[in-house]
């Protein structure tokens, strides 16, 4: 059981990264971005592309670090890939959402457009890589080390949590101290007020997409390191991410963090009683329960 809770925290920290990005977009740009899961997929596949094609071509060796299952290439690819996903998110805004915003489209139309974008991204992945599951380093044994309380953990998983912590702390410092971070929080509070106080909201939106995309990309890569790369991986994360966002109150970054951890732990612990494939319905059921009990989430005011 302790082991399941630990795995749940690993899964939850990945969900949190996705949920934080979703909640930022939800709070600042004010629409439900259904393409968020597929940003994760794109991040994982860009990394795969860098590791398996670009870096061998450049002659970068894939030396591994001690007990970790991945090496130098993944380490180098990580920042490049999350930057690229941020770029994809910004690009989508420029060619799609910005135009819809300017023509004063209904928010539901924007959500619809994001669904379309989600499928476009996934179809591109499917066309380029096909529908099979892939690994960053196929055929590698991934031994576990044993911690106290009979918990078997792979070194990768500890590293994943460390990376998530670093990303969240730097996001926290960014939102708290930088000028654009403050502007983002102001815009989330009240867009009109932010506009009249001279904040360039288009710039804020640009940064929001960049950060949200990069975090989602990071989540996808970490999941790929932990499990595998699959075209539907991000789509399967969409419901848990939304559940975490709603649980932590829409627009609340710290709520999304806690929501993600809660959903992850519950999903993982449920596998002790249910089939593992029911992780997604479990997350969905959690969300419905939240909607009944506290529709505004744990940090929401009535």
């Amino acid at each position, binding site marked *: 059981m302790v082991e399941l809770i630990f795995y749940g925290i690993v899964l939850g920290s990945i969900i949190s990264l996705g949920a934080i990005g979703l909640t930022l977009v939800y709070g600042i740009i004010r*629409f*439900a971005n*259904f393409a968020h899961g597929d940003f994760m997929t794109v991040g994982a596949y860009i990394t795969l592309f860098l590791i398996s094609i670009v870096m061998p071509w450049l002659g970068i060796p894939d030396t591994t670090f001690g007990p970790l299952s991945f090496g130098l290439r993944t380490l180098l690819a990580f920042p490049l890939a999350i930057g690229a996903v941020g770029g994809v998110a910004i690009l989508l805004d420029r060619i*799609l959402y910005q*135009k*819809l915003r300017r023509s004063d*489209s209904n*928010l*539901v*139309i924007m*959500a*619809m*457009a994001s*669904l*379309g*974008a989600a*499928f*476009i991204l996934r*179809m*591109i992945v*499917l*066309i380029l890589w*096909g529908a099979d599951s892939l690994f960053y380093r196929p055929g590698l044994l991934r031994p576990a080390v044993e911690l106290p309380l009979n918990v078997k953990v792979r070194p990768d998983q500890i590293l994943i949590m460390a990376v998530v912590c670093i990303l969240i702390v730097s996001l926290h410092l960014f939102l708290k101290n930088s000028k654009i971070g403050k502007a983002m929080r102001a815009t989330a509070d009240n867009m009109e007020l932010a506009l009249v106080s001279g904040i360039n909201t288009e710039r804020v939106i640009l940064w929001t997409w960049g950060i949200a995309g990069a975090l989602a990309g990071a989540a996808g890569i970490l999941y790929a390191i932990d499990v595998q790369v699959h075209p539907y991986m991000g*789509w399967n994360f*969409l*419901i848990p991410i*939304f559940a975490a966002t*709603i649980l932590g109150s829409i627009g609340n970054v710290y709520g999304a963090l806690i929501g993600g951890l809660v959903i992850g732990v519950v999903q993982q612990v449920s596998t002790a009683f249910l*089939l593992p*494939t*029911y992780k*997604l*319905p479990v*997350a*969905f*059921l959690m*969300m*419905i329960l939240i*909607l*009944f009990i506290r*529709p505004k989430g744990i940090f929401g005011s009535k």
Partner: protein
Amino acid sequence: MELTGLLAYLISFAIMAGIYAVFALGLNIHWGYTGLFNIGIAGFFCVGAYTSAMITTPQPTGVYAHYVHQLFGWHLPFVFGLMGAALMCGLLAFFIGLPTLKLGEDYLAIATLGIAESLRLIFNNEQWLANGPRGLMGLPQPLAHLIDARHYNYIYLVIVLAVMALIYFLIERSIRSPWGRVLRAIREDEVSASMSGKDVFAFKMQALIFGAMVMGVGGALYAHYSRSISPSVFTPLYGTFIIWVMLMAGGSGNNKGAVLGAFVMWGIWIGTQFLTDFLPYTVKSRAPYIRFLVIWILLEFILLYRPEGLLGEEKRVSKLIE
């Protein structure tokens, strides 16, 4: 010979387009008239198809009972299948609407999506419910004894078109009633509708249930056309989003548009199949993805440059208003 082959092909095309038109009409009640953002049509599709299948097939006996498991099998006529499918979907819609309809549109969207994905997993994993991933086979077809099996599709086309027409007139009639006008008022401005004394939640719930029942009928029509159903049919792509593209292309808020959109988009979908036949063998296995990519890019173009679709909404629904 060539001509009969072509005709048979056209008939089966028209049957599928007609079934999709039923779904598009159901979605039109949700989205077109009431502004309900349902992205889990596949869930209603699935429930409608399975309910009708289990109502019309007998419970397997003898040797079959070892291989086929289903929750119940009533062996009733087709019409009861349609009605049962509609009832079950209405019930499902009620339970989805209960926690979500008082909240924003996004909540209904994510809830319908979640239920559709969950149902597919449940039908796939629970053997006792409806035979798991193998699904149910040998579903009966209505009036099959009247005609040789090779030509049966003619009869089924008539049935599908008749059901479609019936639903079309039913929706037209109710949308032009005072009830329908309230739905449109809610879509345009929820606050002012409730200020005029309308119970917004109740009207939204009725529209959600009505549309879901129509989708249930669509699911049942599909089940008895394909004669075998399994969870792999009810994917988000084929079960939900292609129907959205149909409605958006045809013109949401217009029943003629919903039907037109279904036929046009199904035509494009089938047409691109012919085009990808010319692709080299090596990329052919990925051809469906290319076709879907084209459809999604088309959707984004519709949203950006022609949000009203081909026909657009009829602004004036009553003959009495000048």
